[in-house]
């Protein structure tokens, strides 16, 4: 199958194939470097867990940008989500309430963004920046009012909150544990693939399940439903929508509010799944990373997932990698991937790309060869470098919604 044929495949074929190739490469490197973390169940779980907030916030960004509104305020909406997620749980005694209020809190941020950008026509980036300033102040203020009065809470953190918990898929990962059996057979690649799959299914948190389910749901919503079609026209050509009687303001408001709700959900996930308490500055820039994942993912749900995993994997791996050897072996993975890019570029006669990819591949390889463990700054930096690298080679193929970021006034220009 040629590359162009491959590119024409629908996303639900393309991404699994790519994922499979990725696992094969990881498995190969794992054999070469003789350590087992790269495809282990726990690594995958951790990677997935850390990809989740980025994924869900990224899907939030997707909904907003698909209806034409740039949402750089995702970070602020996530912060609102963390606060309200914790508060809802503490106030009403169930993490599900926390999730509900987390979503609601983020949605309020979305509403504010929608009022400013859609209602008043304020520049999207300006409004987003303002929300990013407003949200942490508000959260801290509310903490002072609320959490500081609670046992174990303070102005900068909430008392412990209950986790949403999770479940293990029966038969496949539990009981007969079919996948686990195959993983333990230790067959090259096959076991790796099943290790990864079992990692997905073992003790899957409900939020991870919801997050993963959101990918096909949002893809379906956007492409196959009336709601999605009308939402997308607001981001592609709002005047065309208006001329057919579609209330573009409404679409945009809904899109941006849902976007905020998803960002809030991502924030409450950090509280409910990862940390089990609200802590000031807990989002640590994940809203921005979500935006990067969205762009990386070419404004498609499946792409956002890929982008989130691209961030979550090295990050999760580094947390699990107490010796720093697994992170180091990622350098080899990068080198291999870049060699593939190089070969592909040369066959496409794209000499500049080829040379660039080759050079970086050699650099990565040398780095790999001349270190024993990853230097301590590497794990934290790796996801960002990876995304930069991918964008360097893939940016020209990206296409954003045609009217995203543009002001829209009813009645046209």
């Amino acid at each position, binding site marked *: 199958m040629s590359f162009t044929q491959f590119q024409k495949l629908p996303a639900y074929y393309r991404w699994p194939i790519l994922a499979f190739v990725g696992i094969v490469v990881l498995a190969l490197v794992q054999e070469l470097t003789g350590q087992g973390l790269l495809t282990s169940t726990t690594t995958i779980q951790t990677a997935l867990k850390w990809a989740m907030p980025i994924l869900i916030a990224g899907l939030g960004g997707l909904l907003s940008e698909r209806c034409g509104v740039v949402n750089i305020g995702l970070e602020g909406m996530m912060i609102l989500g963390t606060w309200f997620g914790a508060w809802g749980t503490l106030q009403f005694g169930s993490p599900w309430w926390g999730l509900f209020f987390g979503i609601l809190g983020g949605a309020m941020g979305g509403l504010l963004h929608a009022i400013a950008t859609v209602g008043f026509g304020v520049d999207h980036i300006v409004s987003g920046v303002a929300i990013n300033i407003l949200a942490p*102040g508000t959260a801290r203020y509310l903490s002072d009012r609320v959490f500081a009065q609670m046992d174990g809470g303070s102005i900068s953190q909430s008392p412990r909150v209950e986790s949403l918990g999770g479940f293990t898929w029966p038969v496949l990962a539990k009981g007969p544990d079919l996948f686990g059996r195959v993983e333990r057979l230790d067959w090259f690649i096959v076991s790796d693939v099943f290790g990864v799959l079992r990692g997905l299914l073992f003790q899957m948190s409900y939020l991870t399940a919801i997050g993963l389910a959101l990918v096909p749901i949002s893809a379906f919503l956007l492409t196959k439903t009336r709601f999605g079609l009308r939402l997308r026209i607001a981001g592609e050509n709002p005047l065309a929508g208006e001329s057919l009687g579609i209330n573009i303001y409404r679409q945009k408001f809904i899109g941006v509010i849902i976007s905020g709700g998803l960002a809030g959900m991502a924030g409450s996930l950090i509280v409910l799944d990862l940390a089990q308490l609200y802590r000031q500055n807990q989002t640590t820039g994940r809203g921005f990373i979500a935006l990067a994942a969205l762009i990386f993912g070419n404004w498609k749900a499946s792409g956002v997932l890929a982008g989130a995993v691209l961030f979550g994997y090295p990050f999760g791996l580094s947390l699990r990698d107490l010796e720093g050897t697994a992170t180091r072996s990622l350098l080899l993975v990068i080198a291999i991937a870049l060699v593939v890019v190089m070969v592909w570029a040369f066959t496409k006669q794209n000499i500049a790309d080829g040379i660039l990819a080759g050079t970086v591949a050699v650099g990565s390889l040398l780095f790999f060869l001349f270190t024993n463990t990853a230097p301590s700054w590497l794990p934290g930096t790796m996801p960002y470098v990876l995304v*930069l690298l991918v964008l360097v080679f893939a*940016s*020209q193929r990206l296409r954003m919604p045609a009217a995203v970021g543009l002001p829209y006034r009813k009645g046209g220009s």
Partner: protein
Amino acid sequence: MNTSWTRRLVLALAAPVSAFVFAFLLSSIVLILSSYNPIAAYSEMINNAVKLESIIDMLNEATPLYISGVAAAIGFRMNLFNIGVEGQYQLAAFAAAVIGAKVVLPNGLHMLFVMGVAMIVGGLYSGLAGLLKVTRGVNEVISTIMLNSVATLGIIAGLFPRFLEEKADGAVGLGTTPLAETAWIPNLNGVVQIFTRDIVKGRKLTGILVVAIVVGILYHLFINRSRLGFDVRATGMNPLAAKVGGVPSKKMILLAMGLSGVVAGLVGLPDLLSKSHSYDQGFTKLRGFAGIAVALLGRNHPGGMVGAALLFAFLNTSSGVLQISKTASSEIVTIMQGIILLAAVVAYQMVAQVRQREEIKAASEATGANA
């Protein structure tokens, strides 16, 4: 003529004033809800702000904010969203601290050398994002976000341990070797004292203020008066029309990103030249992001950003006195900043619409009159 002049002034002031009033009201509500007395809080803020020492604090705070605002504004004028000022200035200051400590130069020259290194490093790092955009089509919003993390989590974190000042056993605290005194910038207390009383309590008005003023003037001349600035603005307003008009857009992107970074390089200098004289544990962060807010609030205007920087500095310096006098909690300051920013941009938008409508009206009247 006169009436139109006053009208224009009113229109120009309408947005910031109404935003301020709105923020004032909303903050008061927040204060009352949290059982603070807003009047007490505001009068505490004002009482503090009129003291000479507080004004010095405010100016010291506003100086880097303004420079950071200009750095962001240079990009904005070209529709380039340089979120990377944060990483650029930290990296620039780090490099300038390390390299500056290694050279021996006469007084003044040393200082200029440190500034030069910071500007070059800032410019190059920002230029990298420009280069990625021009050659590889990488969106600068994303690349600068990534580069921020690469600079702080990667480059600085990786290199910092290598350039630590050797300290005697037992001493804690980390920093690069401090710059020699030849690199320190003189403070402006002498100048201030000519006009008022002696400055007490160890307040020193940073000499970087002069740098900021020069940056502001150069920015104004560059953007509004120079041919190159015209090209930058034209590209920002309509890249295709600018290209048709002979403006090389790729070069402009590199130029704007580069210049933005050059100015960004100066943001960290107060720490280096007039505070701790090294890149150390207490190095002031987040000024890059604050600069974005300053640029937005000041509408990228060299004068408007002065007001915005002063306002933010006023609020920042107020947070301390509010806490210590227990008249309000410090979050109120951040909340006010956010509200002012949001309210201001909404108000700007509305005023712009009024203005546009008037312009159209005037234009069609002209058409009618001539027809």
